[in-house]
Protein backbone atom coordinates (compact mmCIF):
# COMPACT_ATOMS: atom_id res chain seq x y z
CA UNK A 1 0.00 0.00 0.00
CA UNK A 2 1.59 3.29 -1.02
CA UNK A 3 1.66 6.02 1.55
CA UNK A 4 0.65 9.52 0.45
CA UNK A 5 2.28 12.59 1.95
CA UNK A 6 1.10 16.11 1.44
CA UNK A 7 4.06 18.13 0.31
CA UNK A 8 2.46 21.47 -0.42
CA UNK A 9 -1.04 22.63 0.43
CA UNK A 10 -2.96 25.25 -1.53
CA UNK A 11 -1.48 28.19 0.32
CA UNK A 12 2.04 26.92 -0.08
CA UNK A 13 1.43 26.54 -3.79
CA UNK A 14 0.04 30.06 -4.04
CA UNK A 15 3.08 31.45 -2.28
CA UNK A 16 5.42 29.53 -4.53
CA UNK A 17 3.65 30.66 -7.68
CA UNK A 18 3.77 34.26 -6.51
CA UNK A 19 7.52 34.07 -6.03
CA UNK A 20 7.97 32.22 -9.31
CA UNK A 21 6.06 34.92 -11.18
CA UNK A 22 8.51 37.54 -9.91
CA UNK A 23 11.45 35.36 -10.84
CA UNK A 24 10.10 34.93 -14.34
CA UNK A 25 9.91 38.67 -14.87
CA UNK A 26 13.32 39.11 -13.32
CA UNK A 27 15.04 36.45 -15.41
CA UNK A 28 13.25 37.51 -18.57
CA UNK A 29 14.27 41.08 -17.78
CA UNK A 30 10.75 42.40 -18.18
CA UNK A 31 7.57 41.41 -19.99
CA UNK A 32 8.51 42.69 -23.44
CA UNK A 33 8.66 39.76 -25.85
CA UNK A 34 7.67 37.37 -23.08
CA UNK A 35 5.63 34.25 -23.93
CA UNK A 36 4.44 31.87 -21.21
CA UNK A 37 3.77 28.38 -22.53
CA UNK A 38 2.23 25.59 -20.41
CA UNK A 39 2.82 21.92 -21.14
CA UNK A 40 -0.33 19.75 -21.26
CA UNK A 41 -1.82 18.99 -19.05
CA UNK A 42 -1.34 20.56 -15.64
CA UNK A 43 1.48 22.81 -16.84
CA UNK A 44 -1.19 24.73 -18.75
CA UNK A 45 -3.22 25.54 -15.63
CA UNK A 46 -0.09 26.61 -13.74
CA UNK A 47 1.09 28.69 -16.68
CA UNK A 48 -2.28 30.44 -16.82
CA UNK A 49 -2.01 31.37 -13.17
CA UNK A 50 1.56 32.58 -13.62
CA UNK A 51 0.52 34.73 -16.57
CA UNK A 52 -2.27 36.20 -14.44
CA UNK A 53 0.15 36.97 -11.60
CA UNK A 54 2.67 38.55 -13.97
CA UNK A 55 0.02 40.63 -15.70
CA UNK A 56 -1.31 41.84 -12.35
CA UNK A 57 2.11 42.85 -11.08
CA UNK A 58 3.40 44.38 -14.29
CA UNK A 59 0.15 45.71 -15.84
CA UNK A 60 0.96 43.65 -18.89
CA UNK A 61 -0.84 41.28 -21.29
CA UNK A 62 1.75 38.61 -21.71
CA UNK A 63 1.36 36.18 -24.66
CA UNK A 64 0.22 32.70 -23.71
CA UNK A 65 0.45 29.28 -25.29
CA UNK A 66 -0.36 25.59 -24.75
CA UNK A 67 1.89 22.80 -25.83
CA UNK A 68 1.03 19.10 -26.11
CA UNK A 69 4.20 17.06 -26.48
CA UNK A 70 2.62 13.62 -27.08
CA UNK A 71 3.66 13.50 -30.74
CA UNK A 72 7.24 14.37 -29.81
CA UNK A 73 7.73 11.81 -27.07
CA UNK A 74 10.93 9.84 -27.53
CA UNK A 75 9.21 6.68 -26.23
CA UNK A 76 6.27 6.82 -28.65
CA UNK A 77 7.34 3.71 -30.57
CA UNK A 78 7.55 1.62 -27.44
CA UNK A 79 4.53 2.48 -25.43
CA UNK A 80 1.80 0.56 -27.25
CA UNK A 81 -1.71 2.00 -27.37
CA UNK A 82 -1.55 5.65 -28.25
CA UNK A 83 -2.17 8.21 -25.55
CA UNK A 84 -4.66 10.92 -26.37
CA UNK A 85 -3.16 13.95 -28.04
CA UNK A 86 -4.12 17.27 -26.50
CA UNK A 87 -4.39 20.77 -27.92
CA UNK A 88 -1.36 22.76 -29.04
CA UNK A 89 -1.86 26.51 -29.56
CA UNK A 90 1.18 28.71 -29.83
CA UNK A 91 1.64 32.36 -30.75
CA UNK A 92 4.56 33.43 -32.87
CA UNK A 93 7.81 32.49 -31.09
CA UNK A 94 10.40 34.13 -33.32
CA UNK A 95 12.77 36.32 -31.35
CA UNK A 96 10.72 36.00 -28.17
CA UNK A 97 11.64 34.90 -24.66
CA UNK A 98 9.68 31.72 -24.08
CA UNK A 99 9.06 30.46 -20.57
CA UNK A 100 8.05 26.80 -20.62
CA UNK A 101 5.97 25.86 -17.60
CA UNK A 102 5.43 22.34 -16.30
CA UNK A 103 4.22 20.85 -13.04
CA UNK A 104 6.97 18.33 -12.31
CA UNK A 105 10.52 18.07 -13.70
CA UNK A 106 11.84 14.52 -13.41
CA UNK A 107 13.80 12.75 -16.19
CA UNK A 108 13.84 15.77 -18.45
CA UNK A 109 12.36 13.94 -21.45
CA UNK A 110 9.14 15.92 -21.54
CA UNK A 111 11.11 19.15 -21.66
CA UNK A 112 13.35 17.86 -24.39
CA UNK A 113 10.21 16.95 -26.40
CA UNK A 114 8.86 20.44 -25.71
CA UNK A 115 12.10 22.00 -26.98
CA UNK A 116 11.90 19.93 -30.17
CA UNK A 117 8.34 21.01 -30.72
CA UNK A 118 9.03 24.68 -30.08
CA UNK A 119 11.79 24.55 -32.67
CA UNK A 120 9.16 23.54 -35.26
CA UNK A 121 7.23 26.71 -34.47
CA UNK A 122 9.96 29.27 -34.75
CA UNK A 123 13.23 30.42 -33.30
CA UNK A 124 12.91 31.96 -29.84
CA UNK A 125 15.65 34.29 -28.73
CA UNK A 126 15.70 32.52 -25.41
CA UNK A 127 13.94 29.66 -23.64
CA UNK A 128 13.56 29.46 -19.86
CA UNK A 129 12.21 26.50 -17.92
CA UNK A 130 9.86 27.03 -14.99
CA UNK A 131 8.58 24.13 -12.88
CA UNK A 132 6.61 23.87 -9.66
CA UNK A 133 8.43 20.75 -8.43
CA UNK A 134 11.93 19.55 -9.30
CA UNK A 135 12.13 15.96 -8.06
CA UNK A 136 15.61 15.13 -9.31
CA UNK A 137 16.31 11.89 -11.23
CA UNK A 138 17.42 13.56 -14.45
CA UNK A 139 18.20 11.30 -17.43
CA UNK A 140 19.12 14.18 -19.72
CA UNK A 141 21.17 17.35 -19.14
CA UNK A 142 18.13 19.59 -18.53
CA UNK A 143 17.86 22.21 -15.80
CA UNK A 144 15.07 24.43 -14.55
CA UNK A 145 15.67 28.16 -14.31
CA UNK A 146 12.74 28.88 -11.99
CA UNK A 147 11.72 26.30 -9.41
CA UNK A 148 8.92 26.24 -6.85
CA UNK A 149 10.39 23.52 -4.62
CA UNK A 150 13.14 20.97 -4.97
CA UNK A 151 12.63 17.56 -3.36
CA UNK A 152 14.47 14.29 -3.57
CA UNK A 153 12.56 11.15 -4.45
CA UNK A 154 13.14 7.47 -5.09
CA UNK A 155 12.42 5.99 -8.53
CA UNK A 156 9.29 4.18 -7.36
CA UNK A 157 7.73 7.36 -5.95
CA UNK A 158 5.01 9.33 -7.67
CA UNK A 159 4.74 13.09 -7.37
CA UNK A 160 1.20 14.26 -8.14
CA UNK A 161 0.35 17.89 -8.67
CA UNK A 162 -3.38 18.54 -8.34
CA UNK A 163 -4.98 21.76 -9.59
CA UNK A 164 -8.44 22.94 -8.72
CA UNK A 165 -9.35 23.50 -12.38
CA UNK A 166 -9.01 19.78 -13.09
CA UNK A 167 -8.89 18.00 -9.74
CA UNK A 168 -11.05 20.20 -7.53
CA UNK A 169 -8.23 21.26 -5.20
CA UNK A 170 -4.64 22.49 -5.18
CA UNK A 171 -2.05 20.20 -3.65
CA UNK A 172 1.26 18.50 -4.24
CA UNK A 173 1.40 14.93 -2.91
CA UNK A 174 4.06 12.30 -2.90
CA UNK A 175 3.08 8.63 -3.01
CA UNK A 176 5.72 6.22 -1.75
CA UNK A 177 5.73 2.45 -1.95
CA UNK A 178 5.62 1.19 1.62
Amino acid at each position, binding site marked *: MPSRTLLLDDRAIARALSRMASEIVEQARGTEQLVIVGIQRRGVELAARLKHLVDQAEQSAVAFGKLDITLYRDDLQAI*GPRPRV*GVTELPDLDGRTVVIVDDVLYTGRTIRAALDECADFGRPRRILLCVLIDRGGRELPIQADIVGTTISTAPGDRVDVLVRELDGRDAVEVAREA
Partner: protein
Amino acid sequence: MKPDVPSLGKDLVGLEHLSADQLRLILDTAEPFKEVSERQIKKVPALRGRTIVNLFFEASTRTRISFEFAEKRLSADTVSIASSGSSVSKGETLVDTARNLEAMRIDMVVIRHHSSGSAEFLGKRIRTNVINAGDGKHEHPTQGLLDILTLRDKFGKIEGLKVAICGDVLHSRVARSNIWGLTKLGAEVAVCGPASLLPRNVEELGVTVIPRIEDAIAWADALNVLRLQLERMQSGFIPSLREYNRVFGLTTDRLERAPKDLVIMHPGPMNRGVEIDSGVADGPHSVILPQVTNGVAVRMAVLYLLAGGSPDASHQGGEA
Protein backbone atom coordinates in the same frame (compact mmCIF):
# COMPACT_ATOMS: atom_id res chain seq x y z
CA MET B 1 -3.40 8.75 -14.90
CA LYS B 2 -4.14 8.42 -18.60
CA PRO B 3 -7.69 7.18 -19.33
CA ASP B 4 -8.27 3.76 -20.94
CA VAL B 5 -7.96 4.09 -24.70
CA PRO B 6 -9.95 1.59 -26.86
CA SER B 7 -7.51 -0.10 -29.21
CA LEU B 8 -8.15 -0.42 -32.95
CA GLY B 9 -6.44 -3.72 -33.54
CA LYS B 10 -3.86 -4.38 -36.24
CA ASP B 11 -5.76 -3.24 -39.33
CA LEU B 12 -8.37 -0.71 -40.40
CA VAL B 13 -10.43 -2.69 -42.88
CA GLY B 14 -13.76 -0.94 -42.52
CA LEU B 15 -16.16 0.81 -40.21
CA GLU B 16 -18.70 -2.03 -40.11
CA HIS B 17 -17.10 -3.75 -37.13
CA LEU B 18 -15.85 -0.72 -35.20
CA SER B 19 -17.65 0.32 -32.05
CA ALA B 20 -18.96 3.83 -31.48
CA ASP B 21 -16.13 4.34 -28.97
CA GLN B 22 -13.52 3.36 -31.51
CA LEU B 23 -15.04 5.71 -34.07
CA ARG B 24 -15.01 8.56 -31.58
CA LEU B 25 -11.40 7.78 -30.70
CA ILE B 26 -10.34 8.27 -34.29
CA LEU B 27 -12.37 11.45 -34.71
CA ASP B 28 -11.06 12.91 -31.46
CA THR B 29 -7.51 11.99 -32.37
CA ALA B 30 -7.90 13.77 -35.71
CA GLU B 31 -8.50 17.12 -33.97
CA PRO B 32 -4.93 17.88 -32.87
CA PHE B 33 -3.69 16.66 -36.24
CA LYS B 34 -5.72 19.35 -37.98
CA GLU B 35 -3.51 21.86 -36.18
CA VAL B 36 -0.32 20.23 -37.42
CA SER B 37 -1.35 20.93 -41.02
CA GLU B 38 -1.77 24.61 -40.17
CA ARG B 39 1.79 25.03 -38.94
CA GLN B 40 4.63 26.43 -40.95
CA ILE B 41 6.64 23.27 -40.35
CA LYS B 42 4.01 20.65 -41.08
CA LYS B 43 5.78 17.80 -39.39
CA VAL B 44 5.73 15.96 -36.11
CA PRO B 45 8.12 13.12 -35.34
CA ALA B 46 5.42 10.69 -34.19
CA LEU B 47 6.06 8.06 -36.88
CA ARG B 48 9.69 8.85 -37.47
CA GLY B 49 11.59 5.99 -39.06
CA ARG B 50 8.47 4.00 -39.90
CA THR B 51 8.20 2.70 -43.45
CA ILE B 52 4.81 2.88 -45.06
CA VAL B 53 3.90 1.55 -48.51
CA ASN B 54 0.93 2.84 -50.46
CA LEU B 55 -0.21 -0.03 -52.66
CA PHE B 56 -2.64 1.46 -55.12
CA PHE B 57 -3.95 -1.07 -57.61
CA GLU B 58 -6.66 1.34 -58.69
CA ALA B 59 -5.84 4.74 -60.05
CA SER B 60 -6.41 7.45 -57.48
CA THR B 61 -4.66 10.75 -57.19
CA ARG B 62 -6.44 12.46 -54.36
CA THR B 63 -6.61 9.59 -51.87
CA ARG B 64 -3.05 8.57 -52.53
CA ILE B 65 -1.73 12.11 -52.15
CA SER B 66 -3.78 12.61 -49.02
CA PHE B 67 -2.25 9.49 -47.49
CA GLU B 68 1.23 10.52 -48.65
CA PHE B 69 0.90 13.90 -46.96
CA ALA B 70 -0.44 12.30 -43.82
CA GLU B 71 2.49 9.90 -43.72
CA LYS B 72 5.12 12.54 -44.45
CA ARG B 73 3.68 14.94 -41.87
CA LEU B 74 4.13 12.19 -39.31
CA SER B 75 7.78 11.89 -40.41
CA ALA B 76 7.33 8.40 -41.84
CA ASP B 77 9.20 7.20 -44.91
CA THR B 78 6.74 6.48 -47.67
CA VAL B 79 6.79 4.61 -50.97
CA SER B 80 3.87 4.63 -53.36
CA ILE B 81 3.30 1.79 -55.79
CA ALA B 82 0.67 2.57 -58.38
CA SER B 83 -0.28 -0.36 -60.52
CA SER B 84 -2.72 0.35 -63.26
CA GLY B 85 -2.93 -3.29 -64.30
CA SER B 86 -6.52 -4.48 -64.37
CA SER B 87 -5.99 -7.84 -62.76
CA VAL B 88 -3.30 -8.79 -60.30
CA SER B 89 -3.28 -12.30 -61.72
CA LYS B 90 -1.56 -10.95 -64.78
CA GLY B 91 1.57 -10.45 -62.76
CA GLU B 92 2.38 -11.12 -59.17
CA THR B 93 -0.49 -12.19 -56.95
CA LEU B 94 -1.60 -9.91 -54.17
CA VAL B 95 -0.28 -12.35 -51.60
CA ASP B 96 3.16 -12.48 -53.16
CA THR B 97 3.36 -8.69 -53.48
CA ALA B 98 2.49 -8.36 -49.83
CA ARG B 99 4.93 -11.00 -48.65
CA ASN B 100 7.72 -9.38 -50.60
CA LEU B 101 7.00 -6.08 -48.94
CA GLU B 102 6.89 -7.74 -45.57
CA ALA B 103 10.28 -9.26 -46.27
CA MET B 104 11.54 -5.70 -46.78
CA ARG B 105 10.40 -4.99 -43.22
CA ILE B 106 7.81 -2.37 -43.92
CA ASP B 107 5.65 -1.23 -41.04
CA MET B 108 2.33 -0.34 -42.61
CA VAL B 109 0.52 -0.88 -45.91
CA VAL B 110 -2.18 1.34 -47.28
CA ILE B 111 -4.03 -0.57 -49.96
CA ARG B 112 -6.54 0.34 -52.60
CA HIS B 113 -7.71 -2.56 -54.75
CA HIS B 114 -10.56 -3.38 -57.08
CA SER B 115 -11.63 -6.56 -55.23
CA SER B 116 -13.99 -6.32 -52.29
CA GLY B 117 -12.37 -7.99 -49.36
CA SER B 118 -8.81 -7.46 -50.55
CA ALA B 119 -7.81 -5.37 -47.52
CA GLU B 120 -9.05 -8.05 -45.16
CA PHE B 121 -7.40 -10.70 -47.34
CA LEU B 122 -4.07 -8.91 -47.02
CA GLY B 123 -4.48 -8.16 -43.32
CA LYS B 124 -4.95 -11.85 -42.56
CA ARG B 125 -1.77 -12.81 -44.34
CA ILE B 126 0.88 -10.27 -43.33
CA ARG B 127 1.96 -9.00 -39.96
CA THR B 128 2.19 -5.35 -40.90
CA ASN B 129 -0.68 -2.96 -40.25
CA VAL B 130 -3.07 -2.77 -43.19
CA ILE B 131 -5.20 0.27 -43.90
CA ASN B 132 -7.99 0.00 -46.42
CA ALA B 133 -7.98 2.92 -48.84
CA GLY B 134 -10.88 1.45 -50.77
CA ASP B 135 -11.50 -2.22 -51.60
CA GLY B 136 -13.82 -2.84 -54.50
CA LYS B 137 -17.33 -1.88 -53.51
CA HIS B 138 -16.89 -2.88 -49.88
CA GLU B 139 -15.57 0.03 -47.77
CA HIS B 140 -13.49 3.20 -47.80
CA PRO B 141 -13.15 3.75 -44.06
CA THR B 142 -10.98 6.87 -44.03
CA GLN B 143 -13.39 8.58 -46.42
CA GLY B 144 -16.30 7.67 -44.17
CA LEU B 145 -14.42 9.01 -41.17
CA LEU B 146 -13.48 12.29 -42.78
CA ASP B 147 -17.07 12.77 -43.94
CA ILE B 148 -18.27 12.23 -40.38
CA LEU B 149 -15.62 14.52 -38.96
CA THR B 150 -16.67 17.26 -41.37
CA LEU B 151 -20.28 16.85 -40.27
CA ARG B 152 -19.23 16.97 -36.64
CA ASP B 153 -17.30 20.17 -37.28
CA LYS B 154 -20.39 21.75 -38.84
CA PHE B 155 -23.08 20.51 -36.49
CA GLY B 156 -21.18 19.81 -33.27
CA LYS B 157 -22.59 16.28 -33.05
CA ILE B 158 -23.66 13.30 -35.14
CA GLU B 159 -26.49 11.90 -33.03
CA GLY B 160 -29.88 12.76 -34.47
CA LEU B 161 -28.37 14.30 -37.59
CA LYS B 162 -30.26 13.59 -40.81
CA VAL B 163 -27.90 12.62 -43.58
CA ALA B 164 -28.97 11.62 -47.09
CA ILE B 165 -26.51 9.75 -49.28
CA CYS B 166 -27.39 10.42 -52.89
CA GLY B 167 -26.42 8.50 -55.98
CA ASP B 168 -25.01 5.14 -56.94
CA VAL B 169 -25.14 3.47 -53.54
CA LEU B 170 -25.09 0.00 -55.11
CA HIS B 171 -21.51 0.34 -56.32
CA SER B 172 -20.25 2.72 -53.65
CA ARG B 173 -17.79 1.83 -50.92
CA VAL B 174 -17.98 5.40 -49.68
CA ALA B 175 -21.72 4.97 -49.13
CA ARG B 176 -21.25 1.76 -47.19
CA SER B 177 -18.61 3.20 -44.89
CA ASN B 178 -20.73 6.28 -44.29
CA ILE B 179 -23.77 4.15 -43.51
CA TRP B 180 -21.89 2.09 -40.93
CA GLY B 181 -20.20 5.05 -39.29
CA LEU B 182 -23.20 7.36 -39.18
CA THR B 183 -25.69 4.79 -37.94
CA LYS B 184 -23.32 3.68 -35.21
CA LEU B 185 -22.97 7.24 -33.98
CA GLY B 186 -26.74 7.73 -33.91
CA ALA B 187 -27.43 9.66 -37.11
CA GLU B 188 -30.54 9.06 -39.20
CA VAL B 189 -29.41 7.93 -42.62
CA ALA B 190 -31.34 7.84 -45.87
CA VAL B 191 -30.29 6.84 -49.36
CA CYS B 192 -31.64 8.47 -52.48
CA GLY B 193 -31.16 7.50 -56.09
CA PRO B 194 -32.61 5.49 -58.98
CA ALA B 195 -33.79 2.10 -57.72
CA SER B 196 -31.48 0.36 -60.17
CA LEU B 197 -28.55 1.88 -58.29
CA LEU B 198 -29.72 1.06 -54.75
CA PRO B 199 -29.12 -2.40 -53.23
CA ARG B 200 -32.40 -4.27 -53.00
CA ASN B 201 -32.12 -4.89 -49.27
CA VAL B 202 -30.42 -1.62 -48.28
CA GLU B 203 -33.03 -0.95 -45.58
CA GLU B 204 -31.63 -3.90 -43.63
CA LEU B 205 -28.54 -1.77 -43.07
CA GLY B 206 -30.61 0.64 -40.98
CA VAL B 207 -31.32 3.29 -43.61
CA THR B 208 -34.52 4.57 -45.19
CA VAL B 209 -35.01 4.91 -48.92
CA ILE B 210 -36.09 8.28 -50.32
CA PRO B 211 -36.87 7.80 -54.00
CA ARG B 212 -36.80 11.46 -55.14
CA ILE B 213 -34.02 13.97 -54.63
CA GLU B 214 -36.48 16.78 -53.89
CA ASP B 215 -37.75 14.85 -50.88
CA ALA B 216 -34.24 14.11 -49.72
CA ILE B 217 -33.43 17.81 -49.87
CA ALA B 218 -36.55 18.62 -47.87
CA TRP B 219 -35.72 16.06 -45.19
CA ALA B 220 -31.98 16.17 -44.68
CA ASP B 221 -29.57 18.29 -42.67
CA ALA B 222 -26.75 17.23 -44.94
CA LEU B 223 -26.38 15.57 -48.33
CA ASN B 224 -23.46 13.40 -49.33
CA VAL B 225 -23.50 13.37 -53.12
CA LEU B 226 -21.81 10.37 -54.72
CA ARG B 227 -19.99 10.43 -58.00
CA LEU B 228 -21.84 8.77 -60.85
CA GLN B 229 -19.51 6.70 -62.96
CA LEU B 230 -19.83 6.77 -66.72
CA GLU B 231 -19.79 3.01 -66.95
CA ARG B 232 -23.09 2.74 -65.09
CA MET B 233 -24.74 4.19 -68.15
CA GLN B 234 -22.78 1.85 -70.36
CA SER B 235 -23.83 -1.18 -68.34
CA GLY B 236 -27.45 -0.22 -68.55
CA PHE B 237 -28.19 0.79 -64.96
CA ILE B 238 -29.45 4.22 -66.05
CA PRO B 239 -30.34 5.43 -69.52
CA SER B 240 -28.11 8.52 -69.72
CA LEU B 241 -26.12 11.03 -67.69
CA ARG B 242 -28.39 13.77 -68.98
CA GLU B 243 -31.47 12.13 -67.55
CA TYR B 244 -29.62 11.45 -64.32
CA ASN B 245 -28.87 15.13 -63.92
CA ARG B 246 -32.43 16.12 -64.81
CA VAL B 247 -34.07 13.71 -62.38
CA PHE B 248 -31.50 13.21 -59.62
CA GLY B 249 -28.94 15.95 -60.00
CA LEU B 250 -28.23 18.35 -57.17
CA THR B 251 -28.93 21.52 -59.10
CA THR B 252 -28.89 25.09 -57.88
CA ASP B 253 -32.66 25.32 -58.42
CA ARG B 254 -33.36 22.30 -56.28
CA LEU B 255 -31.07 23.50 -53.55
CA GLU B 256 -32.77 26.89 -53.49
CA ARG B 257 -35.98 25.16 -52.51
CA ALA B 258 -34.38 23.55 -49.47
CA PRO B 259 -36.17 24.44 -46.24
CA LYS B 260 -32.96 24.84 -44.30
CA ASP B 261 -29.26 25.52 -44.81
CA LEU B 262 -28.24 22.14 -46.15
CA VAL B 263 -24.64 21.06 -45.88
CA ILE B 264 -23.38 19.60 -49.14
CA MET B 265 -20.63 16.97 -49.24
CA HIS B 266 -19.00 15.06 -52.10
CA PRO B 267 -16.19 12.51 -51.89
CA GLY B 268 -14.71 13.68 -55.19
CA PRO B 269 -13.79 13.76 -57.93
CA MET B 270 -16.94 15.54 -59.07
CA ASN B 271 -18.73 15.16 -62.36
CA ARG B 272 -19.83 18.77 -62.59
CA GLY B 273 -23.17 18.96 -64.30
CA VAL B 274 -24.03 15.33 -63.69
CA GLU B 275 -24.64 14.58 -60.05
CA ILE B 276 -23.87 18.10 -58.87
CA ASP B 277 -23.93 21.53 -60.48
CA SER B 278 -20.96 23.86 -60.18
CA GLY B 279 -23.11 26.45 -58.47
CA VAL B 280 -23.76 24.00 -55.66
CA ALA B 281 -20.27 22.56 -55.48
CA ASP B 282 -18.68 25.98 -55.24
CA GLY B 283 -21.51 27.55 -53.22
CA PRO B 284 -21.68 28.57 -49.56
CA HIS B 285 -23.27 25.31 -48.40
CA SER B 286 -20.55 23.11 -49.77
CA VAL B 287 -17.98 21.64 -47.37
CA ILE B 288 -16.20 19.77 -50.11
CA LEU B 289 -12.89 21.52 -49.50
CA PRO B 290 -12.99 21.15 -45.70
CA GLN B 291 -13.56 17.44 -46.38
CA VAL B 292 -10.24 17.33 -48.18
CA THR B 293 -8.46 19.12 -45.32
CA ASN B 294 -10.02 16.81 -42.78
CA GLY B 295 -8.95 13.88 -44.92
CA VAL B 296 -5.30 14.45 -44.13
CA ALA B 297 -6.00 14.86 -40.41
CA VAL B 298 -8.13 11.71 -40.26
CA ARG B 299 -5.50 9.70 -42.08
CA MET B 300 -2.82 11.00 -39.74
CA ALA B 301 -4.96 9.96 -36.80
CA VAL B 302 -5.50 6.47 -38.21
CA LEU B 303 -1.80 5.97 -38.93
CA TYR B 304 -0.88 7.29 -35.48
CA LEU B 305 -3.34 5.01 -33.70
CA LEU B 306 -2.54 1.86 -35.65
CA ALA B 307 1.19 2.37 -35.21
CA GLY B 308 0.57 2.02 -31.51
CA GLY B 309 0.86 -1.72 -31.82
CA SER B 310 -0.53 -4.34 -29.48
CA PRO B 311 -2.35 -3.44 -26.32
CA ASP B 312 0.07 -5.65 -24.41
CA ALA B 313 2.99 -3.27 -24.80
CA SER B 314 3.79 -1.56 -21.54
CA HIS B 315 2.29 1.86 -21.18
CA GLN B 316 4.51 4.30 -19.35
CA GLY B 317 2.77 7.14 -17.66
CA GLY B 318 3.55 10.76 -18.39
CA GLU B 319 6.89 11.36 -16.77
CA ALA B 320 8.53 14.74 -16.83
